[in-house]
């Protein structure tokens, strides 16, 4: 399947991926509304790891053999019809088992409501994930490497 | 307004040429008839002819055709000629009053040979010596103009429709083995007799239809080899390039034509190795001699003639053959007019020269 890959040598640590991820998952899809008005503000599904000069955008790998799915106690974490690993927020009880299980640290607690997790869903409504389209240095690519 | 000599004037035109490869001589009637048919392509502001083989009795002498604005110009010029040449015969070129032809200059002819001592002291070959003298005459003597200076040939030109010019010079009284003609359509200027075609240099004459967009580049290139383009005409550029390549650099005529109208790089890429190397070298070394923009020219010299089109054929040119005779012209009709049933008639491709050589030369 197509996944987002980070090219560490070109990541400049600007975090525009995070910001645009938030916008893409906001209600208004408008950056100023999303940040200044909307409550709660969504969490980014991508997180930039940084130890300058090294940095890269990290997000869910949508593993074939996803331990988060296996470990989820309510079945909230599941694979959808696009093969994307996503979380059904209605079912999530906020136990955070998945957070502990994910070997990449790609799942985060949503501090807005204390229980539901937030993670990359590969932007199902867009032709290309928002982080990829908005990365100014082509440090994120969306390709099928098998 | 500057006289044409000092300013470049764009013009459109008609050209025609006939060569009997066997060397048989024929009168100027055919060429007049051929160029007259294309009257539409001229506007009465210039016409002219070059005739080869017309002076067999003086075949070894340089035949100078001269225009003089006044007596004084003639006197100074004759002094110059006397100083450098032995003059075998001199006199006005016979002309006939034609009502359309007005303001003609004094038109004279001299059969000359360079003075031995002048040749020796100049250290030049006689052709080069004559060429230098022509340049000096044109440059230094106000009101004098050398119309032609080759052996056994002459140019006859003026302001008017070409057929009237032919009548004026009574060209039906001359016989030559090769004739070229030109009808001119300059876009401005009242017309200057010297500015009419053909343009000549020794026995080389050029008639030309077109306008070179590469004029500035070509002129600067020629300048490097000592040619000064004083006439401000494209024809002069074409003539000098041919002179440089064929006479001074001794290059085959076909190659000279391929320099002036080379194949496209695309085409060169596709050629077999040998040819590709040749054409790449030609374009690399002689790029500034490429004649760009629309043209069809007929260049004639004692041994034959060549007709050439620009490489994307922006001006018309047709060729035909019947027996020994080669015809080239701006329009097919101008050939059919004088040769109704040619053995072969064709439209040469852009950049493909049509070359006709006298048989005695070919052998």
């Amino acid at each position, binding site marked *: 399947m197509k996944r987002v890959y980070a090219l560490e040598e070109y990541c400049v640590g*600007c975090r525009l991926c995070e910001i645009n991820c938030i916008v893409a998952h906001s209600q208004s899809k408008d950056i*100023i509304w999303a*940040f200044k008005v909307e409550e709660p503000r969504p969490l980014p599904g991508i997180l930039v790891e940084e130890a300058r000069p090294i940095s890269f955008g990290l997000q869910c790998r949508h593993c074939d053999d996803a331990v988060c799915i296996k470990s989820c106690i309510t079945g909230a974490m599941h694979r959808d019809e696009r093969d994307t690993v996503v979380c059904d927020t209605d079912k999530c009880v906020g136990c955070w088992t998945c957070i502990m299980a994910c070997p990449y640290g790609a799942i985060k607690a949503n501090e807005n409501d204390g229980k539901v997790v937030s993670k990359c869903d590969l932007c199902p409504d867009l032709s290309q994930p928002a982080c990829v389209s908005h990365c100014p240095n082509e440090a994120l690519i969306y390709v099928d490497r098998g | 307004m500057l006289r044409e000599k000092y300013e470049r004037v764009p013009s459109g035109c008609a050209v025609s040429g006939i060569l009997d490869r066997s060397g048989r001589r024929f009168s100027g009637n055919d060429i007049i008839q051929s160029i007259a048919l294309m009257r539409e392509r001229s506007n009465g502001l210039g016409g002219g002819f070059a005739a080869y083989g017309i002076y067999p009795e003086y075949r070894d002498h340089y035949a100078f055709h001269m225009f003089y604005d006044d007596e004084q110009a003639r006197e100074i010029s004759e002094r110059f000629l006397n100083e450098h040449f032995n003059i075998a015969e001199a006199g006005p070129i016979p002309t006939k009053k034609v009502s359309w032809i007005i303001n003609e200059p004094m038109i004279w002819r001299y059969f000359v040979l360079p003075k031995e001592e002048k040749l020796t002291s100049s250290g030049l070959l006689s052709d080069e010596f004559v060429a230098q003298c022509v340049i000096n005459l044109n440059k230094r003597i106000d009101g004098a103009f050398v119309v032609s200076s080759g052996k056994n040939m002459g140019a006859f030109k003026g302001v008017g429709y070409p057929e009237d010019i032919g009548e004026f010079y009574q060209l039906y009284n001359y016989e030559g083995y090769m004739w070229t003609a030109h009808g001119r359509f300059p876009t401005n200027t009242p017309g200057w007799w010297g500015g009419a075609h053909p343009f000549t240099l020794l026995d080389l004459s050029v008639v030309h239809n077109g306008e070179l*967009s590469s004029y*500035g580049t070509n002129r*600067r290139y020629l300048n*490097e080899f000592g040619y000064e383009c004083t006439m401000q005409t494209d024809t002069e550029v074409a003539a000098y390039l041919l002179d440089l390549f064929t006479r001074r650099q001794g290059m085959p005529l076909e190659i000279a034509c391929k320099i002036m109208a080379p194949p496209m790089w695309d085409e060169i890429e596709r050629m077999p190795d040998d040819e590709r190397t040749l054409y790449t070298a030609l374009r690399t070394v002689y790029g*500034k001699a490429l004649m760009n*923009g629309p043209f069809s020219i007929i260049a004639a010299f004692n041994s034959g003639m060549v007709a050439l089109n620009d*490489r994307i054929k922006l001006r018309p040119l047709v060729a035909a053959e019947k027996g020994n005779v080669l015809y080239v012209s701006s329009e097919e009709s101008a050939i059919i007019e004088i040769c109704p049933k040619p053995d072969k008639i064709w439209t040469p491709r852009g950049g493909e020269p049509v070359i006709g050589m006298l048989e005695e030369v070919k052998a």
Partner: protein
Amino acid sequence: MISYVLPEFLVMRDENRCIQCQVCVRQCANDVHYLDEKDGKVKADDAKCVNCQRCVTFCPTHALTIIPNPQEFKANANWTKKAITEVQKQAESGAVILTSMGNPQEYPIYWDKIVLNASQVTNPSIDPLREPMELKTYLGRKPDKLEFDEKGRLITKLTPQLVLNVPIMFSAMSFGSISLNACESLARAATELGIYYNTGEGGLHSSLYRYGKNTIAQVASGRFGVHANYLNAGAALEIKIGQGAKPGIGGHLPGEKVGAEVSATRMIPEGSDAISPAPHHDIYSIEDLRQLIYALKEATNYTKPVSVKIAAVHNVAAIASGIARAGADIIAIDGFRGGTGAAPLRIRDNVGIPIEMAIAAVDTRLKEEGIRHQVSVVAAGSIRNSADIIKAIALGADAVYIATSALIAIGCHMCQKCNTGKCNWGIATQDPQLVKRLNPNIGARRLVNLVTAWEHEIKEMLGGMGINSIESLRGNREMLRGVGLTQKELDILGIKAAGE
């Protein structure tokens, strides 16, 4: 001590738009923006801003504008703000003012006073979309004539030539003055375009040898990174005598820019200043130049054309003629607006002559001496667009070198702070954090785009003039007319006034 120097720019942040995302904070290597922890707001220290516009471009809400500081001194046509500020700076530093890029002063730009011709009626214009339009250019030495045997076969063998698909090359910029990613962008674009880029005086990084076919290897007075492999790595060699931005002085690469890679490539110790002498100490005369040209030809077995690059100075025509006679195959002339990675401000702004005049003078001089057709002439020093190129070629150049416009294509915003090594665009820097900002994939693509766009425009202008091959434009000054020039200027340029 309090600095008397006013901040040059003010950072304007539209609070209605700013979302406090701190992208600007992370992008400014000059530490202008910062997050004020006390109120959680992003603020700016204007005095450090160089107006490179990295933050402006990256701010996702377009909340930023950088403006010149409107603070003025009492009006004085002589003691301008610039004049006063420079005195203040030097009174504080006691040093030569260093700067970079090309001469920004208000000298006339002759390109903008020259207009082009087009065909009407008497000579058809040519549509480049429908007819072939040729820009292929051969640079190198040409014989006076080609020789043929009696069968009409070519005997003459041409000396090595550079073949350009478009008469544009990327001018010398050394690894050290610019980043490896910038070098790679240029090298890759040159390869894709079928043109050449020039290594500059800093040697060739080992990762760039694979672009050798499209490389011109430069040899300058410091001889940094020059060895047999280097000389043989490229398609041509260039001896750098001078540079338009700083005629008469050598280069200076500060030790901070000399990291491991630069040190290895230049063959100098890490952290040491790389200072190239003002002259080549083995070239004090034209005969010496001849020796170096032939030494390089020997070293490369006569397989590569040798170019000699000089700054356009007063007697450039005579110098060019000497260079041609000394055996150079290509003469590159760099006008006084040419850029640099670092130069003393007084030199950059006051030495040299405009490239337009230099090209016209050189072409005419070589023509008068009957040797113009033997050598190629390359014009450099602020070619800003395709019309400048057309004009340069019509004045007599065979091709042009571009550098500043190439850098602008890959992100340079002309802040003229290359000498600080803190280029926010990853170009004039060796800081790994900044270098990675220039992704060579993007850089190469943008360069290819730029040259391709110019190629289209050149074809269109040529077609308009009724010319279908670039060689028919070379030295074709009939195609140019001057507007608003004095007779003397027209004479030097060898062109007529509009209307003539």
